[in-house]
């Protein structure tokens, strides 16, 4: 069978081309006074081109490229997360170790494909060692909150996110050398689900799912977005090791985890009184605004695939 990577990226390029065209037409029709919504839409589409190009280049570079790309994404996400936490001066060493030691070690363990360690490194080793590093400094004020927030940052931004490149380490019979496509499947389904929930919500959204968490999430958007994302995921079964039915189930799990991941991350933002995690990606907000759903979907997808292989 021929490698489906090229037609896949050509398809994504075509979709983005159509999106850019629609954005340009909307902007033209609006004339000199484009609404913020249209400007935001066009900024988002432009950022999508950049993100797809980054993933494309990483795919060309293979395993090393993908690991480096997600290590960088983890770094960007972690600094956004930590920026919103209430650490104190005594936490400086722990913070340095998180960024300069824990993060690189986690991705190195994935590079050498040591499942037995990368799957417990953060939840066991770092979980126990980090509070020790903080405690020996002797500053007990808000100790539990500080340590818990640091642990959460590592779990979300490093551990969970690293399960995307970890898909490359899975040994799936009859799927050798095509593990990159598993990443493509996950990322496409999660992201298209986000986009379609947004589109369905904008078009038909009436009833809010969780008004106190996220004013933009509606039942209409959720149902329409998940249903159409599952349809697209099913239609992509040919790039996966799954049957069409399995692909549909995986897509459903991925989109639901992604949706609830977005809710959880919204709750954190609400608590901290911010609208976005950062300003790194024009139109989208920060790295975590784009990756919140991936973070929640990746480890579950990883383990479901692993049980089945």
């Amino acid at each position, binding site marked *: 069978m021929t490698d489906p990577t090229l037609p896949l990226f050509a398809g994504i390029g075509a979709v983005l081309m159509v999106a850019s065209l629609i954005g340009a037409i909307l902007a033209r029709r609006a004339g000199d006074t484009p609404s913020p919504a249209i400007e935001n839409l066009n900024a988002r589409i432009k950022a999508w081109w950049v993100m797809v190009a980054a993933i494309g280049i990483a795919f060309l570079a293979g395993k090393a490229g993908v690991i480096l790309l997600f290590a960088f994404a983890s770094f960007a996400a972690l600094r956004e997360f930590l920026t919103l936490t209430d650490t104190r001066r005594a936490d*400086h060493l722990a913070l340095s170790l998180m960024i300069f030691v824990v993060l690189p070690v986690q991705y190195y363990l994935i590079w050498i494909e040591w499942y037995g360690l990368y799957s417990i490194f953060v939840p066991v080793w770092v979980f126990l060692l980090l509070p020790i590093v903080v405690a020996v400094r002797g500053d007990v004020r808000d100790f539990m909150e500080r340590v818990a927030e640091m642990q959460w940052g590592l779990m979300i931004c490093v551990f969970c996110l690293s399960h995307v490149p970890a898909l490359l380490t899975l040994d799936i019979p009859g799927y050798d050398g095509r593990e990159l496509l598993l990443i493509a499947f996950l990322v496409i389904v999660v992201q298209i689900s986000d986009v379609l929930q947004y589109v369905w919500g904008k078009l038909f959204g009436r009833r809010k799912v969780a008004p106190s968490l996220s004013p933009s999430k509606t039942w209409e958007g959720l149902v329409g977005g998940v249903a159409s994302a599952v349809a697209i995921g099913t239609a992509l079964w040919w790039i996966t090791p799954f049957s069409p039915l399995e692909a549909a189930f995986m897509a459903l799990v991925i989109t639901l985890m992604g949706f609830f991941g977005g809710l959880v991350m919204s709750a954190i933002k609400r608590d901290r009184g911010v*609208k976005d995690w950062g300003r790194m990606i024009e139109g989208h907000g920060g790295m975590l605004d784009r990756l919140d759903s991936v973070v929640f979907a990746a480890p579950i997808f990883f383990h479901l695939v692993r049980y089945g292989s």
Partner: protein
Amino acid sequence: MTRRLAAAAATVAVTAFARVVTGVRPNWVGALPDPAPRVYFANHASHGDFVLIWTVLPPAIRRRTRPVAGADYWLKDRLRRFLGIDVFDAVLIERDRAARAADPIGRMTDALDAGSSLILFPEGTRNMTEAPLLPFKSGLYHLAAARPEVDLVPVYIENLNRVMPKGALVPVPLLCTVTFGAPMRLRAGEPKPAFLARAEASLLALAPRGAPRTASPSTPAETR
């Protein structure tokens, strides 16, 4: 000539380094960039504070914006002299009242009259306490009284004290923001304490998450 080239190269290096480590972004909420002489007054918790302000200013404005700094610190050795004088073009003032020859306010008004803007830290020293701001020294008032027609722009620097707390060897690359508030001036007949209180309040109002969370256990969730 080589010194000027070295200074230009150092400018690029310093601002690039500041951007990489802190991802610093400007937030022009109350004022827009303006080449007219201004006084930017900011909170001071780290040696890197004015570098951050300097980094987010548009290059044309950055070239004519000079930090006000202690001569004792910036004249100590050759490297600091190069950075302080050639790169940052600091307005150096002598902090020791008894020993000083020139009047610091005079130095600052000279620079403003020559068309430069100033970066000033009215707390007078780095804030090492838990409080978001130390009480302002009177320098800002005297400067405003000497040049009442110059805009005073409050600038709040967030997070740099966490990136590089005192005594730390490695910076932690957290994200920093520099927020520019609405310009203010000395009102006619406004007494010094009232003016300084107003300046402190206008700066504190820019702190993105208000007072430290430890003071109030939960921040109310805002709704859009």
